[in-house]
């Protein structure tokens, strides 16, 4: 039995992301292509997503100039490649509040959003610190938090505290406190629906950018090299490594089952295609009876 289909959808990318940003310590090793993606989980009567991308309406030119981002397409266009409309999405898991994950909430009028309360409360705390400490606020747009107020007013923002099992049947949210951000979280999809699942997928958010973060030298099996943390952590590298271990264990030590949405090379492991807009769709798995979106 497979409850859900999972797709990783690229909505923009940059070809000039410094390698040291994705692999801590990879200084002066040039840059790589970094895909900007969100993930769709569809099945069992639900259309869910991990993250929503960034606010291109307000920041298109700025992000193009400052970050080298290109080829942005709207959720309507990107989701349309797998036959979904933004209005179809009923549940969204916000892995963390950085601008490229929490920026586009307005495009999803029918979704309930889940975020760790700690992500909000520690953000408020960090803002109370003097300006010289505001490295801790890197990447967060106060406008996104302001939009969160509207969601909360509408009853569409659920702030959770820690782990939450079966947020949807077979889908769990796992806290990763004080790692990349204060209240990051990752998603497990137990695709057979069993408590001790033999078919689990982990959606890592920004807790892993590349296979090498997961100790995966390329084989996709058990970790065969050291874990290498990502570059940015307002928490700690220790916590990042501990969470990496938890994610690997959740998938029974099979690193290919931990999906880093920013990783360009997932196209080499899973069926993928390039859309007419030059963006990649990657099909991680299909629910029973679901149609492939690779044609």
């Amino acid at each position, binding site marked *: 039995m497979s409850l859900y289909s999972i797709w990783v959808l690229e909505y923009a990318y940059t070809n000039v992301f410094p390698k040291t940003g994705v692999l801590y310590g990879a200084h002066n090793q040039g840059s790589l292509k970094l895909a900007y993606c969100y993930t769709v989980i569809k099945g069992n009567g639900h259309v869910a997503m991990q993250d929503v991308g960034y606010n291109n309406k307000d920041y298109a030119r700025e992000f193009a100039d400052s970050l080298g981002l290109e080829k942005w397409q709207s959720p309507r266009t990107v989701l349309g490649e797998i036959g979904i409309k933004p209005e179809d999405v009923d549940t969204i898991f916000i892995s963390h509040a950085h601008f490229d994950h929490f920026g586009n909430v307005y495009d999803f009028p029918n979704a309930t959003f889940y975020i760790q309360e700690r992500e*909000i409360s520690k953000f408020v705390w960090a803002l109370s610190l003097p300006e010289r400490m505001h490295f801790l606020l890197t990447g967060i747009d106060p406008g996104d938090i302001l939009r969160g107020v509207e969601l909360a007013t509408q009853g569409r923002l659920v702030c959770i505290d820690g782990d939450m099992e079966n947020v949807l049947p077979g889908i769990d949210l796992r806290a990763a406190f004080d790692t990349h951000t204060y209240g990051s979280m990752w998603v497990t999809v137990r695709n057979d629906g069993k408590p001790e699942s033999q078919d689990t997928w982990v959606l890592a958010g920004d807790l892993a950018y590349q296979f090498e973060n997961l100790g995966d030298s390329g084989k996709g099996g058990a970790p065969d090299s050291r874990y290498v943390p990502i570059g*940015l952590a307002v928490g700690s590298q220790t916590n990042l490594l501990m969470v990496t271990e938890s994610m690997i264990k959740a998938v029974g030590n099979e690193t290919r089952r931990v999906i880093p949405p920013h990783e360009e090379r997932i196209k080499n492991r899973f069926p993928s295609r390039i859309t007419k807009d030059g963006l990649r769709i990657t099909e991680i798995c299909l629910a029973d009876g679901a149609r492939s979106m690779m044609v």
Partner: protein
Amino acid sequence: MTGLRQASGHAVPVVDGVDERLVAYAFAVEAIFAELRAIIGQLSGTFILLQTRRTHDLGELPALVRDRRDRAVERIDCLNSPEGRLADRGKLAQAVDHIDAAIVALRSMRHDRCHEQIVSVSARLRAAYRLMQDVCDHRIGLTMVDIGNACCACGKKLA
């Protein structure tokens, strides 16, 4: 191509070729932005928590916000806008007016609140945010999203 300029220890990404006088002005405005961004973020985040925790406790927030607001006003009063940026001072002052209204509403909610009050405060903060967006110019480092120290920010320099 984007480079980094630094003053008072604060790195600001600036597009090459921009007038140096404008860059100096940008540093002055950034100090105001820093306060107003923080106020909007603090108030927004707190409102989320108030609603999801169903509590009325605002803690020290009003005092913290008031201090930031006062510093922002001092800096706005000293702002010397160059040609082409003359409207900035008025917009930033209006943003403060909206924030002041939000703070007044916040105080009235200390012991009680209703949906309309929250919507009103949210609208005031959005108005302040929009006015700041009008002043934004990423070419001189005036942005609402601070990516100055993000690991991705120097990517364009490597191009």
